[in-house]
């Protein structure tokens, strides 16, 4: 069964550093999403991506964040200058119809 994969599973970084989180969505899906979940809180929408551009983004997705699909298979989330409050699980998802398929997540720890 096809699945969404994410790398790395855990990323530890120093505050102010750039991180890139990677996702390989399911190949025939067209819509891609990033969500995050701060420990103990709910899953929050960050951004949706369709046809090689952002279709919607939340208030959380400020200028420090960017997404791209550099090669037609990978879907990346970049945080330019990480803050302590960026520590969270980051989930990638791709969609067919209404059902979103989530990846296993990347745990980002900012020290």
């Amino acid at each position, binding site marked *: 069964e096809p699945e969404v994969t994410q790398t790395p599973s855990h990323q530890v970084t120093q505050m102010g550093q750039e991180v890139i989180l990677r996702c390989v969505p399911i190949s025939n899906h067209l819509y891609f999403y990033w969500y995050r979940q701060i420990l103990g809180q*709910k899953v929050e929408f960050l951004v949706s991506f369709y046809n090689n551009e952002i279709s919607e983004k939340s208030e959380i997705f400020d200028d420090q964040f960017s997404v791209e699909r550099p090669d037609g298979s990978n879907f990346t989330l970049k945080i330019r200058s990480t803050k302590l409050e960026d520590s969270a*699980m980051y989930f990638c998802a791709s969609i067919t119809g209404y059902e979103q398929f989530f990846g296993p997540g990347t*745990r980002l720890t900012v020290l």
Partner: protein
Amino acid sequence: DQQVKQNSPSLSVQEGRISILNCDYTNSMFDYFLWYKKYPAEGPTFLISISSIKDKNEDGRFTVFLNKSAKHLSLHIVPSQPGDSAVYFCAATTNAGKSTFGDGTTLTVKP
């Protein structure tokens, strides 16, 4: 403005009994509702969904009920099993857009 709410942060039931998880929403534009199950350190896993044109959808031990006039949906699990212990998220979406998640309900099924 929290558009999807799960008012019970936790629920504990005995194995074999029914688990009922509740969810309320405020945005009448939502037309599709999903339940996800999440284990620690894993991504949400799709469980069951319902379109706004239906009031019930059943899949094995899982049934979702939708009351559009009350903007309320519920997930019934019967009989509950210890392996059902997880965090359950209700989510709502519009026409293949982003999912808006509730805060989650932690279900514990005791043997």
